[in-house]
């Protein structure tokens, strides 16, 4: 889609594998690289792959509780941008200062395509 721009490297923090493998396929369809996924904030912290990315997609509720916002803040401190992917937009909005935006579930390809570009140009927000 963005044929001229280099592909983005994306990591996904989500504990529902059905959604992970769907988003993985969509990210690849858009010409980006899906680096991997983790199901909890604890797993993210222990995963070095997750830090070598252009951005991280973050669910609100994870395997270790409502730790998505905490994970986004943790990434933010390390200069890694994140976007919430959730059906709970109201909660995501409360933590708007640590993420670039929110993608609603179920995820539409066009929405994902547009929001992923925020990782390239955070200013577009």
């Amino acid at each position: 889609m963005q044929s001229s721009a280099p592909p983005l490297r994306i990591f996904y923090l989500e504990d529902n594998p059905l959604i992970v493998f769907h988003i993985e396929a969509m990210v690849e369809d858009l010409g980006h690289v899906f680096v991997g996924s983790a199901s909890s904030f604890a797993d993210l912290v222990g995963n070095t792959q997750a830090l070598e990315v252009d951005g991280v997609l973050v669910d609100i509720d994870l395997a270790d509780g409502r730790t998505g916002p905490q994970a986004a803040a943790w990434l933010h401190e390390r200069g890694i941008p994140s976007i919430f992917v959730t059906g709970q937009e109201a909660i995501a909005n409360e933590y708007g200062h640590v993420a670039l935006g929110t993608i609603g579930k179920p995820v539409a390809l066009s929405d994902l395509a547009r929001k992923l570009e925020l990782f390239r140009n955070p200013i577009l927000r």
Partner: protein
Amino acid sequence: MTGHRSLDWVLAMAPYRRDADYLETLLSQYSVPVRRGTGTQDLEALLDDRPGVLIATHEALNPEVLEIVRGHLVAQPDWSEMPIVILLDRLAPHSRIRTELAQAWPRSRQLYYQRPVATLELISGVQSGLLARQRQRDVRDHIEREIELRHELNHRVKNILASISSIFEMTRRRAVSVDQLAQDFSSRLAALADVHAAVYEANGEPIELARVADLTFEPYRTGGQHNLVSRGPAVFLLPQAATTLALCLHELATNALKYGALSDGNGRIELDWTVSPEDSLLTIRWVESGGPPVSAPSRSGYGTRYIRAALQNLFGTAPSILFHPEGLRCVVEGPVSRVSAKHPNA
């Protein structure tokens, strides 16, 4: 502050002489905690602390107090109705005050006494007020629990809809005909429904891995065939882990039926799992043999994509999926604590 002590104490507004002292001494004899509203400035803060019962003497009823208490009463949640004990002098214009307070203080249960009051009478009035508050608190807890459940249900329904949407979209990608799409989609949905039913029937308790294996194999165990073997120690799975493993096993089984060990009636599937005693590492192995020769597909389908992503997500390490000529093999390994609520030896 809404500690556990809310609604079980008395706020006494008795500015005249030693009235407040007297009330406090009296009520403390009956183990009823009392706090005093001495000035209008701390009255609001005390009301925010949720008193169970208000006691107001005639002298306390000035316009400012009336207004502050009114503000609190109007802002009460639906379940709340404040018991208020009002102590009036014999010579006070009782009916005028009653009419006025009925207007000024809505959503309260007003109880009038004429001074001097018999001790027992006042105590029983306060205690019946506190009892009413206890019932209101039960109603409040019930309402809060229901709201919580509704939120939880909404969250789960959204999650399931998102899961089904993913199953549909991913099934659609590889479908070559509408019939095949419908067939694959409904069989995946049925697998999800079966494991959901098992999770629900477990009533919040963990599910044994053996039960998940049985769920998967049940449809294929026709005519007393012994070509499907599963064995392993008791492993109690968390609901999400049970769901994920059931869907992975479903993909492996349908793949075996189409191309592998279950496709020609001669093959055999062995599913086994072990938990190593030294490091509590769970290893799950799916081994097919005796079917038609196997070769790796030119591109990975729904099943392999899902199994790779799901098991990596669940265990933190990717599974190995090997298209061995004798039959497909899939092995995954990870700490049992990631999928299990309790260790069988614990």
